């Protein structure tokens, strides 16, 4: 982790119509830093990282990234700026979103050829190198629907990396996967982290966050409940909201006990 800040969010607020998604979110991400964003579902984590690469506009605050300064509100961002951001920030989706009409290798080659005008041979060579990296070179001519979820997500990571992004965003990359397939995807992400990629990662995998992330952000109730060095936040959270969330995810059996206890209590009156 170095000192140059590559993403700087200041007091960002986002609403969908009248519904508040998050408010006053401020966050700095440094070059090669890995930031994990955790929190209960509906907290606005996905929307927040989508605002970072401007898949969604935001309403208030400012966002500086890659030399651009975006302000919230109605003002239109020039198309060239949006395109520059999209080209230099890679994104991996919860639902993979591979292009079903293209083979694995065509999925990876499309954007470099269409956006960067890379010659086909070079795009193919680079795509193969990426597939080797994630252990899927033999799947290059197969259509996505014939791949397992874990394979699809690894291809999606290659597709994003083919644009040589400076920042990678991951939105719960493993939450649609069967448990036995989670490891192969996390392995690919961990490798990227070791190579110094700047990353923002929304995840429910606490152990992975602790191991790979430098910084952990806990989002809850439309705001950042707590943020700081990964081990500190995950092992000894200071705010009550963060403690509450972590105790629920780290001790599922206790959450189940609480649930049973609450139900028994609520039914007690009938007997």
């Amino acid at each position: 982790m170095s000192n140059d800040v590559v993403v700087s969010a200041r007091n960002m607020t986002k609403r969908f119509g009248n519904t508040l998604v998050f408010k006053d979110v401020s966050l700095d991400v440094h070059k090669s830093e890995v930031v994990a964003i955790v929190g209960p579902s509906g907290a606005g984590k996905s929307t927040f990282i989508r605002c970072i690469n401007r898949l969604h506009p935001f309403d208030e605050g400012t966002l500086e990234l890659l030399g651009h300064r975006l302000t919230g509100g109605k003002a239109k961002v020039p198309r060239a700026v949006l395109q520059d951001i999209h080209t230099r920030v890679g994104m991996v989706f919860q639902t993979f979103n591979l292009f079903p009409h293209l083979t694995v290798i065509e999925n990876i080659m499309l954007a470099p050829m269409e956006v960067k005008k890379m010659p086909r041979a070079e795009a193919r060579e680079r795509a193969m190198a990426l597939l080797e990296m994630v252990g899927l070179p033999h799947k290059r001519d197969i259509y996505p629907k014939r791949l397992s979820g874990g394979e699809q997500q690894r291809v999606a990571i290659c597709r994003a990396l083919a644009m040589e992004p400076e920042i990678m965003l991951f939105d719960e990359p493993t939450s649609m996967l069967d448990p036995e397939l989670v490891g192969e995807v996390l392995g690919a992400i961990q490798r990227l982290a070791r190579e110094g990629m700047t990353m923002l990662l929304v995840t429910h995998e606490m152990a992975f966050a602790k191991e790979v992330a430098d910084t952990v952000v806990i989002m809850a109730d439309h705001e950042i409940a707590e943020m700081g060095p990964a081990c500190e936040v995950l092992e000894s959270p200071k705010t009550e909201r963060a403690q509450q969330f972590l105790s629920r995810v780290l001790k599922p059996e206790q959450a189940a006990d609480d649930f049973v206890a609450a139900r028994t209590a609520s039914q007690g009156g009938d007997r």
Partner: protein
Amino acid sequence: MHTMLQQWALYLPDYLKGVGMTLELTGAALLVALVFGFILALARLSKIRVLDWAATGYVEIIRAIPVLILLFICYYSLAQAGLKLSGPVAAIVGLGGFYAALYGEIFRGAILGVDRGQREAAEALGMPRSVAMRKVILPQAFFAILPPATNQLSNLIKDTSLVFTIAVADIMFQANSALSQNFLPLDMLLLAGVIYFLFYLILSKFLARWELNVQRRRS
């Protein structure tokens, strides 16, 4: 039975001329409908409001009007207003304009039906909208377009039979002129019906095979 076949043989050369005209009209009207329909779909999906409104207005109005009236407007009313179109041209404009509204809606629905995640993935990779449309959205929309589009094509072929009313020598025109000579409307219209049925049969077999091929190639 014997006389019917004799009459069919007698008028077959005329009918075949009609078949040529019907096929040409269908082809030309289909081309107009596809191109103009695609433009209408893009206009309706455009963020420029005026384009959206104009296209929506066109689609809503045109598809509410019976095709026969549209053909008469293109042939008689435009002539009255000083724009004289020949029968075949009026037929192509009328049928093409009507089917453009229908095809436009098919295209628009299919484009909107492509999963939103696909658009987002393309955008997140830095693809400009036009590239995303050409390389990601349209190839996927194509599968949704094929079945309803082929359906409308068989309707279009049948609707070309209306053009005999504006003096275009299609199959129906030939049938009509034959039956006014030999006074055998049953026999002569039956032949026209058989020809339309053959069209339908060939077209549906051909398109079904094509659809199957496309689907097979994809998986």
